[in-house]
């Protein structure tokens, strides 16, 4: 019996009953769908239903998911590829389950329960079919176990459906004739459900290997057969007027044979064959096939199995042409072919032999045409037969039919596998492989040119896909494209067309990458053709591998053309099932970041940044044993994501991810070549650790800003210990990060008054400097430079916050640390002195700073330290001025640094020295002189201000002092009018500068003026007035 068709007929019966009972306006649409399904236009039916669902009224919308699931279920039966068929069943099952969950009291819920059970059965059977297709016993057992699992679950569902039917039967009234008919229908369905239960047990038995050496396996198989037999025998005896019971009887006979009771099996078959065909026709069809199996396996002493099987089998095929695509139809043809092959040995003339073998081959070709229980066995037997006919030793040109050529190609493929098992010499193996590939390509090419290959069939399609694949791998890209693309466009619904398209597209890509192989013609044409194919694939196989690959290629092409929005739209269409999904998502993220950077035209919905982050997040974790590229891409994507997390201040998440990546890294191979893999690993390890350290820095910085110093210390102290213990070589490569982290630790420890810890940090800083190659003294100087900066920042910050207590604590802490450093440095260099003085100065310890600087020894003339010494002297002037020792400062500045006309000092033309002169004049209240001097400096500096940033800063500073001196001078005048005029002039200068330099020229300048305006209300008043007048 055609079990699959029976299931569908059952469902269709229930479905059509429902349809006629309804008078809904959408009935015509559903009738259209049913007709499409009846024509095996399941793809169109599905598309139509999906279109309907966009604007369906509620009552139709409720039915559509069920119709979609049913359409999918029917479509699955037409799919010859078991992998795809299983995927369709899984989807249909999910849809039925969803429907049932959402419509518990739907009138069709009983029907759906049965549909679900039948889907489960079909999934199990398809998986079983896959098991039968496996070549080696281990794989067969593994696939068989998967099938068994599915079949057991299906059995439970069938049992539940049977219970549901029992309930419906018990509740069904039978007063009127229609009620009686309805009840009878339910009872018939119940019998069919029982038959399915029995057959499901038989299928479960088939999932155990019958040739296993393990007795346990054989016992388990026998037990399942016994259980099936029990159910089927019981059903067989229930009702002689019901066809289902006769079918059960036939299967019971089959079970007896399986259980080693051929006589009982024969007796069962005899009963069935003598029964009236009116009720027993289905059972008889099966019994006629099953009987021949018994005769072949266990013939009676006087029987001639070959003769009986050839005669009865031939009659069977003639009597049941509509049942050729059923398991028994395939089984019968395989049985006949097997017997013919054996029988040919007994025939005397070559003509008779060839005729028998030719018929066997034709039968086997028919069996091979779909993936069924017998496909693999048929393929193997065919190869054996062709071997007997000498088909594998003949030159390819002598092969006369498509079939000969195709089988020869299959044989060559098989030989590649066989050689790999036997030959160890890689060069020899490659030589043979190449020979086999050349032969198989020649055979396929020849076969595909033969007239019988013009018509689409599974074998022809397989041949085309195989040709495209091997041609691509052999670098014959033009051939791969010729056959693969033509096939994909000509017969896109065939199961292999999508893969052929993929091979063609890959060939185009290779061709473009390697123009030498492109042959004559314009590469632009090749590119255009590639794009046209990709576009076609995208439209034709939208969410499948081919469609995804096409989107990927189109996306990359658009990226090359810097069309970011279009590229992003393409890449976003790729689905997770795509093998290069991780890479595509990484490229998508990159494109989105670029689009953001280049301010590309926005796409509707999320921003480019959001899209980039989503894409990086979507990059899946690689499965065990994944391709090196997938591993590499995964790591790169996640590292990139951590950087983005830093920008988004998601430090905890960032640290967690970095730690996870660090743990995953050693197990992920990123490159097949070991040396390269090691180099990549080192780089990635560095980046991951960098990410972790940045995350810690972010955490610490956030805590420090919030004044949570203990938390900062908690985050950073372990790292300080690591540095001091030499466990963080990472900072040698990224000293900036190390310094930033240690500075943060230092600041926190100072704030916490934890001087011991702060000293540890200093030690770590010194270690870091040493690692960076600096001498101890230079290291100390570098630390002091850092410290000076740090102290400056922190003192300013605390002062701004007016936090006297913390300020005091910080100064005490830093002072203590500086004392330590000073003590440790026995012979301080000029640089050391200068940095130490700056530290003191930043803590407003100007006197101490001046004392330090004054002690600095003058280097001999021509020494490289002369400039440093000059800086010390000028800083000394500044520190003296700030500690109110202006006279002393004036002496050093004028006598030593600036000198006289006659005896020019080294700083006569030094801007810093000249500025210091202005400051000293200001300090002494000589604002008019100071203004004049500052103004002359402004004039000198102006020409260079627009081309030299340092000069610009000096210019702005001097300009400030001109305005400042005007103000101060004016404020000192007694004449109110003159006073006002001077203040107004000062304000005018401020406004002019602001206008000329668009906001005071620089941040520092702006800060200076803003502070001045805030401090001087008279100036502010005039400034505002001028601004309001628009001057």
């Amino acid at each position, binding site marked *: 019996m055609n079990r699959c068709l029976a299931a569908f007929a059952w469902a269709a019966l229930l479905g059509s009953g429902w349809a006629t009972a309804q008078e809904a306006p959408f009935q*015509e649409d559903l*009738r*259209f769908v049913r*007709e*499409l399904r009846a*024509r095996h*236009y399941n793809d*169109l039916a599905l598309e*139509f239903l999906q*279109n309907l669902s966009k604007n369906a009224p509620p009552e139709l919308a409720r039915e559509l998911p069920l119709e979609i699931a049913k359409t999918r279920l029917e479509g699955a039966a037409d799919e010859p590829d078991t992998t795809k068929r299983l995927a369709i069943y899984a989807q249909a099952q999910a849809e039925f389950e969803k429907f049932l969950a959402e419509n518990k009291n739907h009138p069709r819920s009983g029907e759906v329960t049965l549909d679900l059970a039948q889907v489960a059965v079909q999934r199990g059977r398809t998986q079983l079919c896959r098991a039968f297709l496996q070549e080696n016993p281990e794989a067969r057992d593994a696939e068989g176990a998967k099938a068994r699992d599915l079949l057991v679950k299906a059995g439970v569902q069938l049992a539940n459906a049977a219970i549901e039917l029992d309930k419906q039967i018990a509740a069904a009234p039978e007063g009127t004739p229609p009620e009686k008919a309805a009840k009878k229908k339910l009872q018939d369905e119940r019998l069919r459900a029982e038959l399915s239960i029995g057959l499901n047990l038989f299928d479960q038995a088939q999932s155990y290997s019958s040739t296993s050496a393990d007795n346990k396996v054989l016992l388990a198989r026998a037990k399942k057969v016994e259980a099936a037999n029990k159910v089927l025998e019981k059903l067989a005896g229930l009702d002689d007027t019901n066809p289902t019971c006769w079918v059960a009887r036939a299967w019971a006979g089959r079970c007896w044979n399986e259980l080693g009771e051929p006589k009982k099996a024969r007796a069962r078959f005899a009963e069935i064959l003598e029964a009236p065909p009116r009720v027993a026709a289905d059972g008889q069809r099966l019994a006629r096939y099953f009987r021949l199996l018994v005769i072949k396996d266990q013939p009676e002493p006087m029987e001639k199995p070959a003769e009986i099987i050839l005669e009865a089998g031939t009659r069977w095929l003639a009597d049941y042409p509509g049942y050729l695509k059923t398991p028994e139809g395939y089984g019968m043809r395989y049985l006949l072919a097997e017997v013919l092959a054996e029988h040919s040995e007994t025939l005397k003339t070559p003509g008779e032999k060839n005729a028998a073998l030719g018929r066997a081959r034709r039968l086997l070709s028919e069996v091979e045409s779909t993936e069924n229980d017998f496909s693999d066995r048929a393929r193997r037997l065919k190869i054996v037969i062709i071997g007997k006919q000498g088909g594998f030793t003949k030159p390819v040109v002598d092969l006369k039919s498509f079939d000969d050529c195709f089988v020869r190609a299959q044989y060559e493929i098989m030989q590649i596998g066989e050689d790999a098992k036997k030959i160890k010499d890689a060069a020899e193996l490659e030589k043979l492989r190449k020979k086999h590939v050349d032969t198989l390509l020649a055979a396929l090419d020849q076969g595909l040119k033969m007239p019988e290959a013009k018509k*689409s069939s599974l074998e022809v399609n397989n041949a085309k896909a195989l040709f495209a694949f091997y041609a691509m791998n052999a670098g014959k890209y033009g051939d791969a494209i010729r056959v693969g693309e033509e096939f994909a*466009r*000509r*017969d*896109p*619904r*065939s199961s292999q067309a999508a893969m052929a398209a993929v091979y063609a597209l890959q060939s185009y890509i290779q061709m473009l990458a390697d123009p030498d192989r492109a042959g004559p013609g314009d590469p632009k044409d090749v590119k255009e053709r590639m794009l046209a194919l990709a576009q*076609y694939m995208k*439209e*034709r196989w939208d969410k499948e591998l081919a469609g995804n690959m096409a989107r990927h290629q189109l996306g990359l092409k658009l990226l090359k053309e810097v069309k970011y929005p279009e590229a992003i739209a393409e890449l976003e269409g790729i689905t997770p099932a795509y093998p290069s999904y991780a890479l595509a998502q990484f490229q998508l993220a990159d494109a989105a970041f670029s689009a953001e950077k280049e301010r590309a035209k926005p796409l509707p919905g999320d921003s480019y940044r959001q899209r980039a982050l989503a894409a990086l997040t979507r990059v899946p974790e690689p499965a065990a044993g994944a391709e090196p590229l997938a591993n590499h891409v995964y790591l790169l994507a996640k590292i990139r994501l951590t950087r983005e997390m830093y920008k988004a201040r998601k430090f905890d998440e960032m640290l967690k991810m970095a730690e996870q990546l660090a743990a995953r890294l050693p197990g992920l191979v990123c490159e097949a070549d070991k040396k390269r893999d090691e180099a990549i690993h080192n780089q990635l390890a560095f980046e991951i650790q960098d990410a972790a350290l940045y995350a810690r820095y972010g955490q610490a910085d956030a805590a420090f800003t919030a004044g949570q110093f203990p938390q900062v210390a908690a985050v950073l102290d372990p790292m300080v210990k690591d540095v001091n213990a030499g466990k963080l070589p990472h900072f040698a490569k990224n000293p900036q990060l190390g310094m930033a982290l240690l500075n943060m630790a230092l600041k926190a420890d100072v704030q916490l008054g934890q001087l011991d810890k702060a000293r540890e940090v200093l030690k770590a800083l010194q270690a870091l400097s040493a690692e960076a190659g600096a001498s101890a003294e230079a290291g100390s100087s570098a630390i002091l430079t850092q410290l000076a900066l740090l102290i400056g920042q922190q003192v300013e910050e605390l002062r701004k916050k007016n936090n006297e207590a913390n300020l005091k604590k910080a100064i005490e802490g830093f002072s203590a640390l500086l004392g330590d450093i000073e003590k440790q440095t026995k012979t301080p260099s000029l640089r050391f002195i200068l940095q130490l003085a700056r530290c003191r100065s930043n803590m407003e310890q100007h006197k101490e700073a001046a004392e330090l600087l004054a002690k600095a020894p003058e280097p001999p003339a021509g020494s490289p330290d002369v400039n440093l010494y000059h800086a010390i002297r000028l800083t000394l002037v500044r520190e003296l001025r700030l500690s109110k020792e202006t006279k002393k400062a004036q002496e050093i500045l004028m006598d030593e640094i600036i000198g006289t006309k006659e005896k020019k000092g080294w700083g006569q033309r030094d801007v810093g020295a000249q500025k210091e002169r202005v400051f000293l004049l200001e300090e002494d209240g000589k604002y008019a002189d100071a203004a004049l001097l500052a103004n002359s400096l402004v004039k000198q500096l102006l020409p260079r201000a627009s081309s030299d940033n340092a000069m610009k800063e000096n210019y702005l500073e001097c300009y400030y002092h001109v305005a400042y001196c005007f103000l101060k001078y004016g404020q000192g005048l007694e004449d109110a009018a003159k006073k006002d005029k001077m203040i107004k002039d000062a304000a005018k200068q401020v406004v002019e500068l602001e206008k000329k330099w668009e906001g005071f020229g620089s941040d520092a300048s702006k800060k200076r003026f803003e502070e001045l305006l805030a401090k001087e209300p008279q100036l502010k008043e005039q400034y505002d007035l001028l601004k309001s007048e628009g001057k």
Partner: protein
Amino acid sequence: MKRVRYPAALLVLAGAAMLAWAEDQITYLDPATRKEVTVKGVIDKEDPGGIRIKTTMAKKEIIKDIPATDVRSVNYGSKKVTALEFRQPQGKEARALQPGTRAANRTALLDEALRAYKDLDTQVRDEPNAHRYLQWKIAEVLAHQAKDDPAKLDAAVAALTAYKNDFSTGWEVVPCLKLLAQVLEDKGDAAGASQAYADLAALPDLPRELKQESEILGVRLLLRVRKFAQAEAKLKALQAGLARNDPQRAFVDVCLVQSQMAQGNLTQAEPQLRAVVQSARDPAVQALAHNLLGDYYRVKNQNEQAFWEYLRVDVLYNADREEHAKALFYLSKLFDKVKNDPVRAEECLTRLKGQAFAGTSYQRQANEEKK
């Protein structure tokens, strides 16, 4: 004893056969089941409206009226020829017209049928009903032959014209005039074809529905030959005479839309056709309306929508050969263009080129394109 008994038995059997043959036998299309049904009895009346036969059903004598358009074949009870002889040429003709019959075989079968009909006619010339029927069959076979061989068109026209002039009172005149109109149209004689439909509509005793159908056929011819003003005038006249719920009304409405569309006026086409599709029950109207919607979408370059309209005709409303042929013609293009499915496109073309659509304008168009 045996020698005497044997010929006697034969005589009894022959008598039984003759007796059985004295009955008339009509095979017609049951409109309810769309299946062919055979009824035996005595023909009581025949006119362009159809045949009235007295028959027995459940042991009760009843009178059954069969419309002329539903009649498939009649075996008139003849005293000169046996039922087997009468059926023989009809069987050949039926086999010739089967979709799977090869061209050469078809020609041979039609030749044989024609010869047999002529031969039978010579035998039953004095049985008016049988003679009239056989004359019709001869004219009909000639028309079938003309479909395969345009050189025979004139002969077919002559035979059909002679028939309609000589036998204007029989039921056969209805299919005869329809066929004559088709043959004349195939010949390029639109005026003649139009006149044939007018003659059909003017037949006395013709039922109202058949009269309307004849007029609509005439209008559709006018549309095909692009005489829109004339067609619309006739349609409006028809429309005025039809109630809103009259089954023919939808057909007339669609024909009016068709006329407008053919003149390039598309503004109201879609809503009007959609309204018809929603309300009409007649599959022929549905076929016409869906095909026109397909045309509308094609013109608007909305090929995806056009595809689904034609597919609906192919799958659901495929009773009218000409409309079905049209749907297949466009599907053979749109399957490839819209669905990237050249295999199904080719399937449609193969079906269109099959015998089932022999003589349709779209088959001719498809053949022309291939050349």
